[in-house]
């Protein structure tokens, strides 16, 4: 009973914005759901697979640019951006993973490689005509469900929840399935896993591909919500850090961790910003609270839940 209490509470919390007309609540819930989905996508690679990435913005940006370019340059229906972005993000994850893991890169070396890829994509997006260079891409405003643009923010929120559900489902599958067991074996001891017959490079590459595809879907949601994209928005290190931070604060390698992390991080950030008007105080307070959480709960917020369940 107590075990079911947390998912139940999260479910009720997730449904609250549909019963409210408060735009503050809907905006907060949407940002939280997208962050949780991105954190969960990072968690699949970084938490379950031990593939600590500092450059997940690469996948977010690739997905966002894929969707934006296809509709603005080639006139494709924006909904087709979803499968296209997932394919691009997945392929990028596989390629980056396969090349790095075949070269035997792991730990901090792998983290730096991902950081470098994100930065390289940012530079490329700044230089290429197809991405609009530094000027970025503006998606024309035509609110209609067929255009993947919604006048009511709650629809965007529902889509963010769907993505979160998909990412959480993938995490649950990893936590209980055969592939997940192989992945965690690789995470704990690569040599032992290899000796047991696990295809280490393929397992890790597939995991990064899955994580990349989910992260790219988050990029599509971003573009369709805000209708503007530039290299800074798409590939910033800040975005990579946010994904990592949310999973770490909530509890990396757990199903509930990124959800809790996103809720707490956004609740602190957005409420302090709304309540404190003096510039600089809200971000400072936010930083202090995060430091306290990381210091007191190195295993993440999920430890508190586990203790009480």
């Amino acid at each position, binding site marked *: 009973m107590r075990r079911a209490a947390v998912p139940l509470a999260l479910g009720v919390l997730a449904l609250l914005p549909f019963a409210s*007309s*408060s*735009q*503050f609540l*809907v*905006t*907060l819930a*949407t*940002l939280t759901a997208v962050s949780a989905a991105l954190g969960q996508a990072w968690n699949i690679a970084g938490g379950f697979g031990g593939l600590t990435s500092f450059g997940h913005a690469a996948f977010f940006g690739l997905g966002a640019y894929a969707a934006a370019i296809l509709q603005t340059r080639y006139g494709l229906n924006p909904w087709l951006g979803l499968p296209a972005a997932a394919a691009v993000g997945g392929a990028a994850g596989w390629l980056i993973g396969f090349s790095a893991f075949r070269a035997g890169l792991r730990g901090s070396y792998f983290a730096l490689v991902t950081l470098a890829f994100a930065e390289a994509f940012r530079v490329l997006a*700044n230089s290429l005509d197809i991405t609009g*260079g*530094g*000027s*970025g891409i*503006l998606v*024309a*405003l035509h*609110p209609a469900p067929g255009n993947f643009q919604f*006048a009511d*923010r709650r629809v965007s929120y529902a889509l963010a929840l769907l993505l979160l559900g998909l990412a959480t489902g993938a995490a649950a599958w990893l936590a209980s399935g055969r592939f997940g067991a192989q992945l965690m074996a690789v995470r704990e001891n690569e040599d032992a896993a290899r000796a047991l017959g696990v295809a280490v490079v393929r397992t890790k590459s597939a995991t990064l591909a899955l994580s990349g595809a989910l992260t790219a879907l988050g990029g599509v949601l*971003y573009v369709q*919500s*805000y*209708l*503007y994209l*530039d*290299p*800074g*928005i798409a590939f910033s290190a800040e975005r990579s850090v946010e994904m990592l931070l949310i999973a770490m604060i909530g509890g990396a390698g757990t199903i509930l961790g990124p959800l809790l992390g996103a809720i707490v991080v956004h609740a602190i950030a957005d409420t302090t*910003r709304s309540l404190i*008007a003096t*510039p*600089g105080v*809200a*971000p400072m307070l936010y930083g202090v609270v995060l430091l306290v959480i990381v210091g007191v709960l190195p295993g993440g917020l999920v430890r508190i839940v586990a203790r009480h369940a």
Partner: protein
Amino acid sequence: MPAVLRAAPETVKIGMIHPVTGPLAFGGGQCRLGGQIAVADLNDVGGIKSLGGAKVEAVLGDAQGKAEIASGLVDQMAEQKVAGITGCYASNLALAVTQTAAKYSIPVSIDSGIADSITSRGLANVFRFFPDNTTMTNQAIACLDALNKGAGSPAKSAVIVHENSEFGTSTAKLLATKLAGIGIAAKETIGHATPTRDFTNIALRIKAQAPDLVLITNYPNEYQLLLRTLYQQKVDLVAAYSVSGGGFNLPFAKDQPAVSANMIDYNHWYNPHDPRAEAFRKRVEAAGHVFGWEVLFGYFAVRVLADAIERAGSADADRVIPAFAASTWHDDWLPYGPTRFVNGQNQGARGLGLQIQDADIKVIWPGDFADAKPVFPRPKAG
């Protein structure tokens, strides 16, 4: 006879969205300050008279330099029933805000977002009292040409340095295409990220190219760091010239007189011959604030919006937007003349050629507005 009881007029809310924390905090804070002064001034003279003297209330939002936060603030302000929004200092924030505001038909009065695309997308709710990027760059080229020819054409080549987001990239592209037309060859265009904290390599690249001019377009910190590095590396130039230079401001002129001396910028400024402008500057400085053109932007973005509300006699968007579009407002100290919006862009808006002389900002071009003679070419370095 009993006194006539009349309900106190409701307040008219104006949203102000700016980045007041993060790397763009200085400029965003300046715009916000201008907006707050405008609100105080409006209330001091009786609020919105056509609405029975309704007071104007500022609803403040910190976009933190992030488009998604700026967009979310519009949602919240729509819920608070703002009559209009001003903002957003940076073009990428303005693009996000105007798109979201269009969904609610909230009029947006742009302060310092300069990208052409802010008003060229056909959004009926968006108005920019100030010049767009193409206007500024074309005028900046005309100014540079006049200064160069006036000195016997000593400048024949240039290196362009720009920050690599929308603002810097689009300006640099325009500059690169126009320079040849005034007899100046663009040797190289160098982009850099914001933030960038070390310009040594860029300064050395410029030194190796030995151009007559360095043309700069970037945000405040990078602007000043680049100029300081050029000064330290003793890069000899006919002139350093910026277009909408983010760091071209009075603190820079006063705090770094050696680095900033003779720097030329084509930028927004007030008409120095109008005594109200000088009085406004002194008022801002007397209150302990830094005076920069962003304060003027924040101020007039609110004033022109409030004028539309006043003439509409309503805070409803469907009446404010047509009133805004029909604005002929000219009670300003900017060198613009009467307002005339075409597709949301004020056609009379313009910049001025400015130069830092004696640790102050002087207008050097065009002659009608100038209060100092240009130093061009500048004295040799070191």
